[in-house]
């Protein structure tokens, strides 16, 4: 029996712009929820953020917006005026979830705080996404990608000169959205079991400090013995660190057409030896005395380097991984569309967009029967005004009046 779409019947109202909120909304839309994106009249700011496909700053060609807003319907609304608020109240009355990313206090300013929303719709889940949280001393503080990494993650991510650097892209904001999506699903579960809606306070700050990427481990380590993650400053001439485990090939190695990342733990030495199949290397690792000699590390490095240098990245990776030795090719994101694995699994797909034309899109983050589908491309601003407002019960005349008044 084919199961229904994963999030069948779930109605989500997205009052969010930028990256985190829309990414949370995208996960719902891509897995079958009906997501209506309520945009301000000048649109989600991400429409104006790069990279742009046409090379210009055409608001319908932001790769970021096109990625984050698949499968959503877009309507425009100004909820700060009386009429706009009343329309929003009607939208809220038939929604299961509201995801919003306005500055803390904005909804209350419209007269639509969580208590008011609950009075309209008792089982509503409200997920608020902000830089630092809905209350507390930093409530009104602002955020940006670099600020989020400064809060957690950057202290142990350093350039060769010791300066902290961001991880690149918009990873912190995506992760805040990812976590908000999970928290929202927990709140939906709660609401469906009890009939009582819950307000989720999703912040970039907590997403960063509460991350698995070392942040929480290091916090516990600090509580255990007082040490902090500040790394020793490497000098610019220092070669990349090879191994914290002794003379084992670790780090990056050059291949014919680029480089690979190599991870060798003590337990994986046999796997490495099988993959490289070098008699001298095998001899070194069966001779504890030789292994302890200071010049052995360099010899191991030479043998491994020579093995990698005579191979293409993917060949080295495939041969090593066949033995269970963690070697991976370092690729550029532009190579993913032609990567056999990602093509075969539909991780990167080709679609047609009415404005952007032939467009590469990203496939599902996870597969499940009746799960992910690409039903419609990211919407134009207000593209679904008539459709959604008519569904809501507004007449064509109402809609044109509201348009003339600037409400829609």
């Amino acid at each position, binding site marked *: 029996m084919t199961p229904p779409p994963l999030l069948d019947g779930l109605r989500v109202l997205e009052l969010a712009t930028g990256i985190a909120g829309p990414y949370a909304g995208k996960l719902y839309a891509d897995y079958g929820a009906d997501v209506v994106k309520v945009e301000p009249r000048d649109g989600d700011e991400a429409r104006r953020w790069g990279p742009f496909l046409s090379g210009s700053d055409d608001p319908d060609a932001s790769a970021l917006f096109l990625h984050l807003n698949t499968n959503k319907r877009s309507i425009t609304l100004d909820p700060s005026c009386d009429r706009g608020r009343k329309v929003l109240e009607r939208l809220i009355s038939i929604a299961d979830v509201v995801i919003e990313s306005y500055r803390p206090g904005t909804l209350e300013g419209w007269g639509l705080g969580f208590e008011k929303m609950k009075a309209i719709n008792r089982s509503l889940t409200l997920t608020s996404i902000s830089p630092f949280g809905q209350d507390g001393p930093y409530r009104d503080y602002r955020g940006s990608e670099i600020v989020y990494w400064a809060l957690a993650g950057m202290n142990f*991510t350093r350039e060769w000169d010791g300066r902290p650097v961001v991880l690149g892209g918009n990873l912190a904001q995506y992760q805040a959205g990812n976590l908000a999506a*999970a928290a929202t699903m927990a709140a939906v579960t709660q609401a469906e079991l009890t009939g009582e809606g819950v307000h989720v306070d999703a912040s970039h700050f907590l997403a960063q400090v509460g991350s698995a990427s070392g942040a929480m481990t290091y*916090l516990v380590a*600090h509580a255990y013995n007082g040490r902090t993650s500040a790394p020793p400053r490497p000098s610019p001439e220092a070669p990349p660190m090879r191994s914290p485990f002794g003379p084992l090939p670790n780090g990056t190695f050059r291949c014919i057409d680029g480089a690979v990342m190599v991870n060798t733990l003590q337990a994986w030495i046999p796997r490495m030896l099988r993959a490289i199949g070098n008699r001298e290397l095998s001899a070194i690792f069966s001779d504890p005395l030789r292994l302890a000699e200071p010049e052995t590390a360099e010899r191991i490095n030479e043998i491994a380097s020579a093995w990698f240098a005579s191979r293409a990245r993917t060949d080295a990776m495939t041969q090593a991984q066949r033995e269970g030795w963690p070697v991976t090719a370092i690729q*550029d994101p532009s190579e993913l569309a032609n990567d056999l694995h990602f093509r075969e699994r539909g991780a990167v797909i080709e679609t047609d967009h009415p404005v952007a034309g032939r467009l590469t899109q990203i496939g599902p983050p*996870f597969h499940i029967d009746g799960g992910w589908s690409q039903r419609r491309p990211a919407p134009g601003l207000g593209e679904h005004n008539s459709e959604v407002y008519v569904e809501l019960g507004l007449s064509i005349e109402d809609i044109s009046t509201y348009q003339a008044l600037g409400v829609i």
Partner: protein
Amino acid sequence: MPGSGLPLEGLRVLDITVAWSGPFTTMFLADLGAEVIRVENPWAFPSSTRGVSPRPTPEAVGAANNLNMSGYPDLDPGERPWNRSAVFNWHGRNKRSATLDIRKPSGRDMFLRLVEVSDVVVENNPPKLLDALDLGYEQLAQRNPSLVVLRMPAGGLTGPYRDFVGFGGSFEGLVGLRSFRGYPTTSPENAPGSLHMDTASGATGAFALLAALRRRRRTGQGALIDLSQLENLVQQIGEIVIAGAQGIVCGPTGNRDDRHAPQGVYPCAGEDRWVAISVASDDEWCALKHLMGNPAWAEDPKFSTADGRMADHDELDLRISGWTEDLDRYDVFHLCQAAGIAAAPVMDEADLYADPQLAHLGFFRPLESPHTGRHTYPASPLRWSGPSLRWERASPGLGDDNEYVYREVLKLTDDEYQALATDGHLSNDYLDRQGQPL
């Protein structure tokens, strides 16, 4: 913990995850009230799960410059280091630990009996591991058709990378994460590494499971979730992949981006002290000028537009550093934020424990354990108006819950329990091939 009102109360999860990504997913489930039972094999120490290595010496712990290796209470690995490592104890709270060697026929049988009384199975090993034991989704679903199974290997359950092994740090370069990190002159090989993949997978795993459980409530149907950690990471760089496919390259830009100028990490008073500042508009630039005391250089018309500030960003960085270098990073942080400019000190762990916002959010909470004593731990990044998230028991030591799991949950007879012990399944130690503690 009946009566908590938490949404996953009464749900049982079998957790055979290693390292961080899978355990991060099950941490959310346990915090939300599920009974999470870690099924751990005492005959195989999985690296970076309960420590990087099974038995580091106190000297090695003290000398390590990496907190994964030095993260033991008072730098003492103790008698059973696997119960004391921060690598495990950041996520293990609320979970139970039972030991079982599922590679042995009697272990496999016992695992299937646990499957019969569970709702969810989570694993993140190379798929061939369970498949070789005939413990794939088909076999599990045969025993329990409404089971939801989350398998989250790096490559997913199909395709050429299916059984690839490695940690988050080894894999991020494969999807391109090393190509846009660091200074513009930094090559992907020399870019600093990260473990963002673990973070991203853990949250998506929780989302996927909660969604599948919702559908199960409505239809009674179980499900198999095939979560490729690599593909989940591709989601988080979607715009870069989409643009890249059209030949638009997004290379490393250091601490700058195309929406903020100036933006950077600036040195402050003290050793290795930094503040990040991010200016998003001309108004914010004027506010920053004002904070700096409206110096003459800042009045140069070339700095009045974002394009101009981007063009001479190097000069701007030197000037701003000249302002910040004598100031306390927290003063710059609060001054900027009060003026509506995004900023933050580069915080280390001590800073975070002392942070008033995290204190307000109740992020740090104490737990006491016979293995580690009493310490303050980071809690859940989830915050809501619903019932308090579970904060019940500290991370379990290896096999601490064998009695509970086998006698109370499975209701084994004394003879059956004894047979498990005789067969070498029950242990509080990791064992070598001879069955001696490692």
